[in-house]
């Protein structure tokens, strides 16, 4: 069957090759030289690698945590308030509008944000025009700021995804539930806390899992906006392995980085799935 052959050729064999390469020293040409675990011991002592893992946590916050919180509030406002007060059409319009950034090519969105955030870019011009020169910054060029600038871009990109998933989850909630709660005197904050959040538990899990995994793989925004710099301050594992593969051509070392990244991703994914099935079992009881 062609599916199996394709899977072997495109996923399984390259994946095994990558692990194999990670035990060697190789410049991409000639014979790879077996060096055992040397690449991995070096990895553990490499501060740039640890920085890249630390930055991954920043991206988890920017892609999984912040958009989830914002989208929960937005989704419940649109469902519980806008749809009732102003009609379903307006609610759908807002949903589509917030979703739009999500489908742009990240590299094109990167060009756009580079244009806004560069030292002579739109943001600094606006701040200057408002007389707030003191707030101007070299958003992507300052090691203390660049990671936060990237985080802001990722929040912008990600809100649409979680919003649409949450709104689809709310679609199976009976609106009369909200109505009954309202008649019983529950305010909008209480309805959010005691109806929306519990109802959306499965969706919050799915969004948490998929966006956390996506955060572990962030590549394009870093490539386009900062190249991992300045001074490694925005380095992430994906870009670091790419950098070793194709810039320094330390292929063995790059493969070790990629393998470590894969191990972390798979372990985190499995923990998530395990927690989800446990949660579902508890619900059954």
């Amino acid at each position, binding site marked *: 069957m062609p599916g199996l052959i394709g899977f072997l050729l495109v996923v399984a064999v390259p994946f095994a090759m990558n692990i194999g390469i990670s035990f060697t020293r190789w410049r991409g040409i000639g014979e790879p030289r077996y060096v055992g675990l040397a690449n991995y011991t070096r990895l553990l002592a490499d501060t740039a690698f640890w920085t890249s893992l630390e930055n991954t946590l920043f991206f988890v916050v920017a892609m999984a945590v912040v958009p989830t919180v914002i989208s929960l509030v937005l989704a419940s406002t649109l469902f519980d308030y806008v749809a009732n007060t102003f009609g379903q059409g307006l609610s759908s319009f807002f949903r589509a509008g917030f979703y739009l950034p999500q489908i*742009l090519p990240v*590299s094109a969105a990167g060009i756009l944000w580079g*244009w806004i955030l560069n030292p002579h870019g739109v943001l600094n011009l606006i701040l200057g025009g408002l007389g707030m020169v003191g707030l101007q910054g070299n958003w992507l060029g300052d090691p203390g700021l660049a990671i936060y600038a990237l985080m802001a871009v990722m929040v912008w990109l990600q809100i649409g995804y979680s919003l649409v998933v949450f709104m689809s989850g709310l679609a199976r909630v009976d609106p009369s539930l909200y109505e009954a709660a309202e008649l019983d005197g529950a305010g909008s904050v209480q309805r959010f806390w005691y109806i929306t959040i519990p109802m959306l538990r499965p969706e919050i899990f799915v969004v948490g899992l998929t966006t956390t995994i996506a955060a572990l793989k962030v590549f394009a925004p870093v490539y386009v906006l900062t190249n991992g710099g300045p001074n490694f301050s925005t380095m992430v594992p994906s870009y670091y*392995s*790419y950098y070793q593969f194709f810039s320094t051509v330390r292929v063995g070392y790059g493969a070790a980085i990629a393998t470590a990244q894969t191990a972390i991703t798979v372990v985190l994914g499995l923990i998530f799935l395990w927690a989800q099935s446990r949660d579902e079992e508890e619900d059954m009881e």
Partner: protein
Amino acid sequence: MTDATIPSAPAKPSAGRRSRRRGAGRWIVLGLLILFLLLMLAPLVLAAMNAVKTAADYAARGPLALPHSFTIAGLKAFWVHANFPRKLLNSLLLSGAAAVFGTALSLFNAYAIGIGRIRGGRALLVLILLGIMIPQESLVYPLYYMAKAAGLFDSLWSVIIIFTVLQSAFGTYLLSAVMQEFPHELLEAARVDGATRWQILRLIVLPILRPTLAVLATFFFIWTWNEFLLPLVLLASNDTQTISVAMGVLSGQYVSDPTTTAAASLLGIAPTILFFLIFQRTLTKGVIVGAVK
């Protein structure tokens, strides 16, 4: 006409609930939402506004002012300089092929695993799930090496094959789940009537799954369109690059000329906005399909 005379009658059953929300509060909520939406869409609006300005206009009035001039020089410069039509064609070919082949492969795989019941179907599904999770970084160098060895480096075929398989991993997973809910009596009846497996697939399974397959294909198209790492590595020359890659390669040059950069980002974004307008319903529905996994 008769209808028009009675619109003031409170006919809606939810009128009681609505009337309690007539206060000023709702306008504040709406205002905040609009403000937030404008903030979200501001980068796109700014790009569109400044893409058609002359450089002098931009320098004199800044990025926030409405254009006092109109020129397509910036758009044209990028269109010609980056050989945009070629890149558009490459992106269309790659994404179209990956969508069609990927969907077909997903269907065959899922049919074989789910309804055809080949042995070890569950183990295969777990494997597929791992295939979805694996970061592309751990495949990229071997794929680069293999493409070179096979003479497919810098050819659209290499990425078409790769994305057909990668997308079909998710598609197989999703369709297998859908097929488990299938009316088995229907298939059993067809089998009793002597239908071959191929006939069952073509005459029964395919028509029932058609809407799901359409959503899947739309999603594969957009996902492949936006893919960056593998096309960046595998498509080296100007003639094979996709829009997504071309935009990435352009980065670093943005300081030079703000209006051309705005034009470039507008052109890079425009096709997906077009798809968005066409497929808006499918796309938002597709996320729901994706979230069911």
